[in-house]
Every structure is written in structure tokens, then in C-alpha cells.
């Protein structure tokens, strides 16, 4: 009994976590398993996992920026158009004006940041709602894409394609795997172990806060490490010449960096403060305008990156690039537990949200479902996932998605004698049983 309670309380964090609150991870696992069986094992093949990563890297990159925009209480409808605009500018520069491709990427990032700053200026300093500014931006930059590109499809050189379709090189002894991918997996394992150890140590420093039982840590590490080892072997064991994709590495670096920024720095916390209560944040010394400006600028930057990765993967910039990307990114963020009114949400939640949609999409395509049905199912899924989360919040439970996306959330125990915790856990155990 007490072990069950410990497990519920500590495996993914949150005092009020219970079986239902692992919903999103369970959904993901369930969807993966379902399609793994339905497709006769195709879902988890190396080739499919690599393709999946490449197909959704750019949407996930957008959803990182979109998360911050939504947390700050705004929305950005222009990301697809900005991505398409940057894509055509870079493609033209690289192909027709002989700009070397690395410089082309820098140019793209600069263009994206500039567009973001332009939109940020209107939102932060003039006070036009972001919905309007970015609706205008959506038209503006879609038109810009067509104006510059003449609605043509402009190819990009081989070197540029690395960021969207590239792989790590094959180096070292022939192990039957891509050695660099193995190395990455090993590093990730080490990082996970270090983090668990550190979080236990930090908690020990807090007076009165006991760390979770050691066996919980071991269990959690076992689960995480087996997932990582499995994924590593799959990614490393694809066709010769393939590995964990370069776009996946870019995404991973961004996820780690932005998770850290939003959770562990003053700047990140200011974004949550502004979204939670702008006036209170202002009266606490947060520079409202600067936060809004930076969030929008950052979105422009990431849109540009996503656009370039898509162009690289498609080997060309086309007039249909970026259509409805904003909706995919927004859906990922909301499935990942962000609040429409701002102030809530996590980067990792959005990535999990995006991943669930990606696996769903991919699985449906593997079993040959038409794109019409795929859209219907995705629509229902979005509605269902967010409705469930809202329902759970209303019931006074902590958000399913919110809780599991803070896997290392520290939870000091309730002081002895507080009647709350035992009775709650009992009630929950009863409900679960």
C-alpha cells in the first residue's frame, strides 16, 4: 500500500498525481503499441523512427517558440508564413546569388529575428493584440513569399540539405551501428543519471524535504535508461549511412536549452509571470514590454529555423511551404497542457503533445488511412485531449499533462499531522482500485 502511494507520488512527481495523471505518457505508449501491432512492427523500425523524427522536427521547433508565446498570453498565427518567407529568401540567396549555404542559414536566422522583432514591436510597444499583428503577418509574409518566389519552386544545394535530411557520418570501427549515434545515446544516459543524482542531492539540501525513496529513483532510472537504450539502438541501427537525423539533434539541443531557460532562469520565469497576471508582474518589476518583445522575436527566429529545415528536407522552397503549420504547432502546445489564457505550460509538455500527434499521424498513414480520415481523427483527438485536461483541472486534480511534464519536480512531504495527504492518497487508491 505505502509502496503504491510512493510510486504514485514520486515516479513522475506531483503530490496529487495518480494513475490517471500519467495519461499523456500512457496515451503515447498506448498509441505506439497499438500501431506497432497494427502495422506488424513497422512503427518502431529504424527507418520509420528516423523518418518520424525528420518529419516532425520542424513542427516541434515551432511549438517550442509557440509555447513561450502562448505562456506569455499571446498567439502567433504567422509562423507558417514567416517560415515560408524565410525559406524562399534563403533558397534564392543560396541558389541564385551564390551565397555559401552556411551564410545562407545565418541570413535566414537574421531575417526571422528581424520579422519577429517587427511583430514584437507592434505587440509590445504599440499594444496591438498579437492575434491581429500575426494575422497581418500571415498575409504579409505569405504574400512576400509569393512575390519573391513568383510562386516558383526554388531548389537548394546539397550542402544546405544537411540540416533537414542529413545524418551523422560513419566513423570508427564497424560495430554494425552508427557509432556517433551510440555515443549520443551514451551521453544522454550519463546525463539522465547525473540529473537524478543531482536532484536527490539538491533535495537533501532542503531542510525538511526528504528525497523520494531510493527504489523509486532506481525504477525511474531503469525505465528512462531502457527507453533511451532502445531508441539509441534503433536510431543507430538503420540503413548504412543513416543515423539519428541532424534535424533531430538540432531539435534536441533546442529542447534542452529552452526547457532550461523557461524553468531555471529569471527571464523564463518572467514569461510565466506576464502570462499569469501581467499587471502583477509589472508591479513586481518585470519589464512587460521587453518580455513580450523578446517572446515574439524568438518566435520569428524559430519560425525561420523551422522553415529552413523544411526547405532542406524538401530540397527546395515551394509556394506551399508552411501552410497550416501554425495550427499544428498550436495544437501540440495545447495537447501538451498549456492554458489558453496563458501562464501555464512547459516545453517538454509541448514536445510530448507534438509527439503524440506525430505518432498518431504516422501510424494512421502506415495502416493506409486516407488524409481525410487522418484529419478527422486528429481533430477529435485534439478536442478530447484538451477536454480531458480541462475536466481534470475542474475536478480539483492537478493537470494530467502538467504534472507529468515536470518529471523531476521536487515535492517535500507534508508536515506530519496534516490530515490532507493520507486521506487524499487513500481516496485516490480507492478510486484507482
Amino acid at each position, binding site marked *: 500500500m505505502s509502496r503504491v502511494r510512493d510510486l504514485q507520488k514520486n515516479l513522475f512527481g506531483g503530490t496529487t498525481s495518480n494513475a490517471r495523471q500519467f495519461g499523456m505518457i500512457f496515451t503515447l505508449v498506448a498509441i505506439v503499441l497499438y500501431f506497432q501491432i497494427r502495422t506488424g512492427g513497422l512503427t518502431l523500425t529504424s527507418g520509420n523512427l528516423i523518418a518520424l523524427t525528420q518529419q516532425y522536427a520542424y513542427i516541434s521547433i515551432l511549438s517550442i517558440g509557440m509555447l513561450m508565446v502562448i505562456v506569455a498570453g499571446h498567439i502567433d498565427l504567422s509562423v507558417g508564413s514567416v517560415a515560408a518567407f524565410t525559406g524562399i529568401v534563403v533558397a534564392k540567396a543560396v541558389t541564385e546569388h551564390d551565397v555559401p549555404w552556411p551564410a545562407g542559414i545565418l541570413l535566414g536566422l537574421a531575417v526571422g529575428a528581424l520579422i519577429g522583432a517587427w511583430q514584437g514591436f507592434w505587440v509590445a510597444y504599440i499594444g496591438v493584440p498579437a492575434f491581429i499583428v500575426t494575422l497581418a503577418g500571415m498575409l504579409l509574409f505569405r504574400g512576400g513569399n509569393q512575390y519573391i518566389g513568383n510562386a516558383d519552386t526554388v531548389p537548394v544545394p546539397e550542402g544546405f540539405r544537411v540540416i533537414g535530411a542529413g545524418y551523422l557520418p560513419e566513423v570508427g570501427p564497424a560495430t554494425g551501428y552508427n557509432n556517433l549515434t551510440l555515443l549520443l545515446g551514451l551521453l544522454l544516459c550519463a546525463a539522465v543519471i547525473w540529473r537524478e543524482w543531482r536532484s536527490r542531492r539538491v533535495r537533501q539540501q532542503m531542510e525538511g524535504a526528504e528525497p523520494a525513496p531510493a527504489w523509486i529513483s532506481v525504477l525511474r532510472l531503469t525505465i528512462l535508461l531502457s527507453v533511451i537504450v532502445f531508441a539509441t539502438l534503433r536510431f543507430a541501427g538503420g540503413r548504412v549511412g543513416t543515423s539519428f537525423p541532424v534535424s533531430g539533434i538540432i531539435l534536441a539541443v533546442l529542447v534542452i536549452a529552452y526547457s532550461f531557460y523557461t524553468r531555471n532562469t529569471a527571464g523564463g*520565469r518572467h514569461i*510565466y509571470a506576464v502570462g499569469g*497576471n501581467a499587471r502583477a508582474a509589472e508591479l513586481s*518589476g518585470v519589464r512587460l514590454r521587453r518580455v513580450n518583445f523578446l517572446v515574439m522575436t524568438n518566435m520569428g527566429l524559430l519560425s525561420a529555423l523551422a522553415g529552413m529545415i523544411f526547405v532542406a528536407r524538401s530540397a527546395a522552397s515551394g509556394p506551399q511551404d508552411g501552410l497550416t503549420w501554425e495550427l499544428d504547432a498550436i495544437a501540440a502546445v495545447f495537447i501538451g497542457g498549456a492554458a489558453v489564457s496563458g501562464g501555464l505550460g512547459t516545453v517538454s509538455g509541448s514536445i510530448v503533445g507534438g509527439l503524440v500527434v506525430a505518432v498518431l499521424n504516422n501510424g494512421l498513414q502506415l495502416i493506409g488511412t486516407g488524409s481525410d480520415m487522418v484529419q478527422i481523427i486528429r481533430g477529435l483527438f485534439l478536442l478530447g485531449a484538451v477536454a480531458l485536461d480541462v475536466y481534470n483541472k475542474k475536478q480539483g486534480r492537478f493537470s494530467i499533462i502538467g504534472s507529468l511534464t515536470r518529471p523531476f519536480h521536487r515535492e*517535500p512531504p507534508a508536515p506530519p499531522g496534516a*490530515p490532507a495527504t493520507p486521506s487524499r492518497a487513500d*481516496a485516490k487508491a480507492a478510486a484507482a482500485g
Partner: protein
Amino acid sequence: MGNALLEMRAITKEFPGVRALSDVSLVVAAGEIHAICGENGAGKSTLMKVLSGVHPYGTYDGDIFYQGRECRFGDIRASEHAGIVIIHQELALVPGMSITENIFLGNEPRRWGRIDWKAANHRALELMSLVGLKEDPDTLVKDIGVGKQQLVEIAKAFAKDVKLLILDEPTAALNETDSRHLLDLLRGFKQRGITSIMISHKLNEVEAIADAITILRDGRTIETITVASGEVDEDRIVRGMVGRDLESRFPEHVPRIGEVFFEVRDWTVRHPISADRLVCKNSAFTVRRGEIVGFAGLMGAGRTELAMSIFGRSYGVHLDGKIFKDGREVEIRSVADAIAHGLAYVSEDRKAIGLNLLDDVKTSVVAAKLSKITRRGVLDEAAQYHEAESYRKSLRIKTPTVDEPVTRLSGGNQQKVVLAKWMFTDPDLLILDEPTRGIDVGAKYEIYGIIQRLADEGRGVIVISSEMPELIGLCDRIYTVFEGAITGEVARRDADPELLMKQMTSSRRLPTP
């Protein structure tokens, strides 16, 4: 009187992790005014929500008998149908609609399926005269004062054919005149046979008006006192609410006042929207180290505006004026500047602008000075936890852990979190705007203690308050404000309500005694 209109028996209500009510009983006789007293978090509002069907039948244990029959309300409509109407502390009016539209919102008189506005206006006028509201029924609600808005709420209740009227802190936001009017109104209703339940912190009002008083503490009924029996006195109520005797409303304190260190001269501020209005007129004042300075004034006198405009120009359009700190003039252009110069402003409206209600206790405490827990650009979560923990202990914030969301805390404890948030910035001057509004007696006493401690540490404290006894009991010196101008300065030993009231209501500057 005599026979019970309402009887709630052994009501128990649990929320996940909290038992809000255990075994609470309440008997309200027909035609009486029944007061419910208790500290914040004692369960008063929960009890009323159970009664009005906000928490529907089945989510609580116990029985409700109303007009002699057992009632099982599934929602608010069901209880309203039975004539039970609740008026919440936060008014449920639509600001952009007219008085008539608000009175009949959700209850529109219809004719052939269309809203009959003629009948509605006619009936609205009747209801308005019933509650003593003299306004054009087409006036928008946002254009009338809080006191009148309260009357609109009551008129709205009458539109629903109310038999049992429940008022949750009806006078909390009202000035004395409006409060008195409201209490008179309740007496009038009693004459008409309408039963009222009133939740209030203001013991003098309770004493003046209630026929019976039920005291709740920690989700339990402590006692019900009948006023007619003559056993009522404030001390007894307070003892029941707090669970101990309160020797005095204010802790003992011997001030240690130092030099003048903060001075404002010729402070003039213009209203942000109507440009020809001056909300502060050539205001000048000083604060000494270790001194608690009061600002007395009626609502709308410009006290809050004065404070906020000084606090990093967060209100209005600054026209003129200088701020001196430790003898040197300082430029304070933004809130960040103000914090850097050691100023702190605790707002009167902690929910709207004082706290981020999505935050938990620990993140709220450190929110105004993240740099203090940042090491090499990274927030130190252990340090954040330690800081929050130490404030939880020293201010006795009632919360199981500092990870608790602030919304789960009672008003008094939220206020302590806001105080902690500003104490964390280590300010030289704290401006506290209505620091005890909506807070119960016990918590008030503690907050007074905290304020005195802050002063004793050599800081200056400004207390803005509408409650005269609070100012007189707490402050070493009191400025009076009237229509944006400082009209007087009274030392503690000379302060009496009458003198202050005179200065608060006249622009003639009286000679300083």
C-alpha cells in the same frame, strides 16, 4: 420569528485533500437577520455554496431542510427557484450593461418570446426604489459606484422573488455612508418578512444588526448566540472565531523612530485618461526610519494613486515633483527603478494585481527579486525553497508546504505571502495599501505585528487604510488626504477619529497641532 426557515444538519464537505466543513449545523429562524462569523478559511463561504447548490446535492454529507421540507439542490437555479439568493463578495454584474439589463440578466421578462423592455424598465424602477437606488435604469453599471452596484445586486435578488437573502461580506468594499445605508436596508427587509444571512468580518456591524450569530472555526460550528439574550459582546465573538482571547487588537509596540530618510515634494500627477484631472496635487510628505506613517482618506481620495505614482510611475501621468531618499534626489522611472531604490508597494487588490494566481507560494515569494536567488544566471531552486520556507515560518503562513498554489490559501495567508514577497526585496520603504482588507481578526493582529517588526528593523512603513481605528492604533503619524491633496498631518497622541474625519472631508488645511 421562532419557527426555523432553514435548517442545515451535520453538513460535511470534503475537497481533495481538505475537509472544508465537518458536521456543521445552522438554524435560521424565519424573518431574522442571521450573521455568520469566522476567520477566513473557517468554511463560511463553503457552507453558503452548499446551501445555494454551487456544490450540488451528493457532493456533501448532511441534510438541508428549508421551509420544513428536505431540499436537494442540483444547481444554483434550483436554489434560486426556491427563493434562496446569494450575493457574492465579488459582484456578478456585467459592467457594460445597464442597470435594468443587469437586474433581469438570465431572468428577462418575456412577452411572445421577446424581451419586454418596457415592463422590465418599469419593474426595475420599482425594485430600485425598494433598495433606495436613485439612478436612471439605463445607466451602465460601470458608471456607478461600488455601493450602488451592491444595491443593483440586491435589486437583482428581489427580481427573483427572494425569500432568503445571503450576503457575503456585503460592506467589505463600501465606505461608511454606503455601509450604513445597506444595514438600514437589511432592517427594512426584515420588516417585510425577508430572512437574511450575512457573512461579515465587521463585528460592530454584526452586533448592530444581527438577531443571531453563528460562529464557525476550522470548518466546525462553535456556537450560535442569540442577540436578544443579551450575551453578545465583541470579545466573545472574537474568542469564538480565533479560539483564544485577544487582549488587544494591536500588539504592544514602542516605536524607535530615527531620521527622515524619504521625502516627496510637490508631487503632481494627472489622470491617465481624463487629462485635465489632477489626482495628486502638490503632495508633500516625509517618512522617518522606524516610523509607521498612515494615510487616511475616503475611497477615491487619491491615496492609492499617490502611492502607485511614486512606485515607479505605475499610475497616471507624472507632471512634477521630486523624491529624496537619504538626502539625495532620486529618479524613479520604472517599477524596476523603484525596487532598486528600496521601495516596495503592497497593493490593495492582491488578487487582481498583487499575485499571479497560477503561482505557488515559493515562486510568489521570490517573484519581485529573482536576482537574489540567481547564481550565474540560473535560478537556485534550493535557495528559493529555503527563502520561502523561512518566510512561511517567520510569518506563520498557514500552508502545508510552500509548493501549494496560492489560490488554496485563505485571504489572510495570501496577504502574508504578498508581504513576504516584498520583504524579500529587502526594501527601505514599504507602502502597504489596505493591508488588512478582507482579513479576519486573528490574521489582522499578526499582520500588525509584522508591520511593527518591519519598522523596528529601521525601515519606513506607509499604511494606507480606510479603517480609522487601524490607523490610530498602528501608526505613529497620520496624513489625511482629500481630493488628491494632503490636508493634514496628525501625530499619534493627537489622533482621534473626529479630527481625522474632519480633515479627510475638507480641503481646508488645518493647522498642525
